[in-house]
C-alpha cells in the first residue's frame, strides 16, 4: 500500500518537475532510482553509510532500530542495485558483515537530494 503511495508521489513529483521545465537525467532511470531510495529504511541505510567509510550489520541495525530480517531485505535490494557493497568476514568465530556505500549509491543519494530540493523549490515558487 505504502509502496503504491510512494510510486504515485514519484509520478506526481516528475510531473511537477516537467511542468516547471526542470530536466532530469533519463526519466525511466530516475524513476527507478527514486523508488529504490525513497523507501525510509533504504534511505536511512544509504544516508548512514554516506557519512561513514563502512558500517557493520549490527551498527546499522542499532541505528535504524529495526530487526535482522527487515534490515537484510532492504540491504539486499540496495546491494542488488549496486548502491552498497557488502563484505563478509570472521572476527574470531563470529561472522561480521560490513557495508559501504558505492560510487553509484553516493550519486543516487545526491540525485535524490537534488530531486527533493527541486520539489521544494518548485512548490515554493508557485
Amino acid at each position, binding site marked *: 500500500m505504502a509502496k503504491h503511495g510512494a510510486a504515485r508521489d514519484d509520478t506526481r513529483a516528475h510531473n511537477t518537475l516537467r511542468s516547471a521545465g526542470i530536466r532530469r537525467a533519463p526519466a525511466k532511470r530516475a524513476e527507478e532510482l527514486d523508488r529504490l531510495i525513497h523507501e525510509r529504511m533504504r*534511505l536511512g541505510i544509504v544516508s548512514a553509510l554516506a557519512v561513514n567509510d563502512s558500517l557493520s550489520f549490527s551498527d546499522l541495525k542499532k541505528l535504524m532500530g529495526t530487526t535482522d530480517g527487515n534490515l537484510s531485505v532492504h540491504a539486499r535490494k540496495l546491494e542488488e542495485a549496486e548502491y552498497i557493497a557488502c563484505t563478509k568476514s570472521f572476527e574470531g568465530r563470529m561472522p561480521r558483515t560490513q557495508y559501504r556505500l558505492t560510487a553509484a549509491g553516493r550519486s543516487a543519494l545526491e540525485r535524490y537530494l537534488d530531486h527533493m530540493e527541486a520539489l521544494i523549490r518548485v512548490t515554493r515558487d508557485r
Partner: protein
Amino acid sequence: MTSVRPLRPPPTEPPALHVRAMDNLAFIRNTMEAAGSFTAVSGWGMVAIGVLAVAVAAGAGQQASRAMELGIWLAHAVLSALVMLWAIVRKAREARMPLLSGPGRKFVLSFSPPMVVGAVLTLVLFRAGLLEAIPGVWLLLYGTAVVAGGAFSVKIVPVMGLCFMAAGVVALFTPVSLTQWILGAAFGGLHVGFGITIARSHGG
C-alpha cells in the same frame, strides 16, 4: 432522531509534496547526524600539547612550592585548550565539516561538564589545602571528559580517556613526590602516543 456516525474517520488531505520532501530531507539529515562521528579531533594538535606537557613537567619539578607547580600546569591547561581549539577548527575547515552540528555539538556537550567540575574541584581542593589530590583529580576528570566526548568520536578517543582515568587513579594513590612525573607521563606520553595514532588513521 439518531445521528449517523461513520465507521471510518473522514479522509484527511494527504500532505503536500513539498512537505513530504522537507520531511525526507530532515530524515536524511537526522540519520546522518546520528550515524556520523566527530572526526575533527586533531591528532597533531594532541602531539603538540603532549610535547608541551613534557616541557612543563620538567619545569614544574624545579619549582619551590606546590602551588607554583600547579600554577604552571594550569597555564599549560589554558595554552593546551587554545592550541587544541585552533587545531580542531583547522582540521574541520580542511575537511569542510561543520564544527558545532550533530556529532560535534554532542562531543562538546559531553566533554564540557567534567571539565567544569574539574575547575570547581580544583578551587575547592586548593582552598582546603589538599594540593596533593589535585593532579589525580585533574587526570580523572579529564579522562572522564574524553571518554564522554569520545563516545561521539572515533573509537580510539574513549580508549585514550580510559588511560587518563587509570593514570588519575594511580596519581591519587602514589606518593606526592611522583605526581609531577605521572602528570608529565599522562599529559605528555598519552597525548603524543594517541595523537600520532589518530593523525595517521584519521588524517591530521
